[in-house]
């Protein structure tokens, strides 16, 4: 018995030692290396989301490095990605960022979650430890407090709302029932949408937000929503449960339309429940129906390689990374965060064409650091996605 115990102890110790040993990262070669951090949920519920983001960055780095990297101040540099799991918990994102900055000497950190970005914003301006946050969130955090070293990639979620409402009202739908996810993000969306909807002359007949993360059966919620006799349901959270809500609503005899918040991906919903059930839905345009000519080939290449559907997370991270690379090149320095952030403002840097990149960008707001990425909604009619005109929200 004692011997067995000892064996176990030694095995454990050996495993731990091995783990520790193999923790050291690989060293760069002759060229200079620019390290880029990503803190995202890479395990747990959000693992797929984080993986999509990581894939976008990895592909971009692969492509750039294959072309020999970038030239900064006459020296060749290649990129290296440091992904770290934060399990969608802000204080883990925070320690990840601390590690990036202190252990890995990283100056650029991508982060795809609003709560986590918030904690990063507390720390990226410390003297001597500055880093640039590449924020992937449709919550306009810059509106609440400015951060000199933050670049926000996607459009604010509110830019979709006018199109959503115009579409729904155009169908003659006036009564909406709110059925989006609970939690802070869902609440924010719900509140903003509700105000706009009422302002546009609509009414809210029922409110039954459900926890998309823990519920598996939404019938009770849907029945409550349907009891008010709505023309259209406001739904959305992660794609899978959103699909579930829509399917069950149809199962319960709902014939109207759906307004789907941007967190849910229309193509994933279509995969899950088919286009028939989505008739009359409006949401974010799916990747494969993009108006940009470079998107579809990118998505195809991605699918061939990873066997999974390409999401906007991947496409947008891929594109945004190229903007970052250009800014570094333009700044002529690899570690001066201030200069690099300013280089984003230079003409041409934050402008990508949709013919070359899966997502087009049209510049940056020099003050807030929000990139100008068009928001495009689409609705489902006759079993097909019909894109609406892309919204150049920054012009309003």
């Amino acid at each position, binding site marked *: 018995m004692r011997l067995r115990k000892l064996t176990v102890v030694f095995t454990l110790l050996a495993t*731990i030692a091995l783990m520790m040993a193999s*923790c050291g990262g690989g060293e760069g070669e002759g060229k200079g290396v620019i390290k880029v951090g990503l803190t995202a949920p890479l*395990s747990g519920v959000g693992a797929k989301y984080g993986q999509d983001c990581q894939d976008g960055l990895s592909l971009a780095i692969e492509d750039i490095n294959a072309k020999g990297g970038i030239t900064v101040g006459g020296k060749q540099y290649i990129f290296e990605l440091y992904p770290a799991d934060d399990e969608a918990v802000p204080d883990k994102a925070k320690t990840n960022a601390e590690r990036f900055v202190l252990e890995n000497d990283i100056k650029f950190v991508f982060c795809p979650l609003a709560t986590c970005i*918030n*904690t990063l914003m507390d720390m990226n301006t410390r003297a001597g430890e500055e880093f640039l946050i590449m924020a992937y969130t449709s919550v306009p955090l810059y509106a609440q407090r400015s951060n000199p070293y933050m670049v926000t990639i996607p459009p604010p979620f509110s830019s979709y709302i006018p199109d959503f409402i115009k579409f729904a009202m155009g169908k003659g739908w006036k009564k909406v029932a709110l059925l989006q996810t609970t939690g802070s993000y869902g*609440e924010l969306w719900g509140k903003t949408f509700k105000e706009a909807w009422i302002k546009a002359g609509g009414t809210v007949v029922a409110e039954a937000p459900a926890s998309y993360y823990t519920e598996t059966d939404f019938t009770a919620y849907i029945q409550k929503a349907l009891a008010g006799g709505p023309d259209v349901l406001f739904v959305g959270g992660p794609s899978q449960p959103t699909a579930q809500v829509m399917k069950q609503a149809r199962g319960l005899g709902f014939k109207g339309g759906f307004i789907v918040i941007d967190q849910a991906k229309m193509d994933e919903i279509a995969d899950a429940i088919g286009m028939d059930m989505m008739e009359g839905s409006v949401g974010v345009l799916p990747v494969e129906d993009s108006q940009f000519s470079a998107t579809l080939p990118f998505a195809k290449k991605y699918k061939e390689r990873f066997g999974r559907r390409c999401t906007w997370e991947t496409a947008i991270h891929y594109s945004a990374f190229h903007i970052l690379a250009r800014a570094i090149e333009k700044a002529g320095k690899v570690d001066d965060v201030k200069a690099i952030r300013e280089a984003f403002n230079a003409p041409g840097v934050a402008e990508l064409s949709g013919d070359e990149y899966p997502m087009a960008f049209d510049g940056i707001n020099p003050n807030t650091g929000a990139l100008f990425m068009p928001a495009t909604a689409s609705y489902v009619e006759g079993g097909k996605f019909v894109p609406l005109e892309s919204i150049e929200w920054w012009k309003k």
Partner: protein
Amino acid sequence: MKWIKEKLNFNLLVGLASLTLAALLPLLLQRTSGGKYNMIVLTYAMIWAVAACSLNLILGFTGQACLAHGALVGIGAYSMAIMVERVGINYWLAFPLTCLLTAFIGFLIGLPSFRTRGPYFAIVTLCFNVIVYATFENWTWLSGGLAGQSFEVPPVLASRTTKYYFVLAFLALTVVVVRQIIKSIVGASFLSILSNESLSEAVGISAFRNKLLSFTVSCFLAGMAGALFATVSGRVDYSITSFLHSFNILVYTLIGGVATIAGPVIGAVGLYYLLDRIKGFGEFRYVGFGVLLILIIIFFPRGLMGGINQLRDWVKEKRSTKVAPQGEVGS
């Protein structure tokens, strides 16, 4: 009692030595930026060690499995941040107030909960945690929603090194508090409930009151862990109230060694550090961690410290020919 004194002195010596070591560590760590990172990780780890010690008081020494410590730490963190930022109370006043508030909330939870026993109590506290989490997640006025509640730390505590020492001081205080309680007749009453509840009732110890007392103290310390968390992180959001934290604290306590004074500290600091270090292994690290948990709990049911104690007893047994210490019962 002489022999106790000898043993205590040995433990005291080990404790003081570790404290000195911990106090000297920053001098080394400060030199490199990688070291600074380790300091941050250790600071967080020590906060969880405070929480684990607080759980140990109610779980290890009183025998009541509480699964609400995540919520309690969260309540502490939020109350600290809200008191300082929204109410405008001075930091140094808010700190003790936070501990007292958390203790009071714990007292209120304890009143109905301690009517139940064993697994029932565990589930009641787990439910409380779920309620707290759902409330903080959805009631954005209270929790600050996605942004959470930001928190201005007094300038004295701004640097990493002072934060480290600040947390270390409170960890040391926690250990001393737990020790003082456990080595006293008050702690003996707690132990008696853990050991045999009906007998302790029969010798005039009210199990209900003592459990409540132990739980209230435990909540006080959990609130302190929360206040420290707010101090170190500078921002509190609803994820801190998650019951996953309760599970983590429980794991730290049990793996380190339940019902020992050093166990929870070793468990929390060791495991937190280890889990941070193996982040690079991708998702599958949790398969390994899960299996590791099972193996440890099977082969070392009393945790690491329990294992060490067993080993020590075994060595002692081998070495010494037993001398009955007749008539040496002096204090």
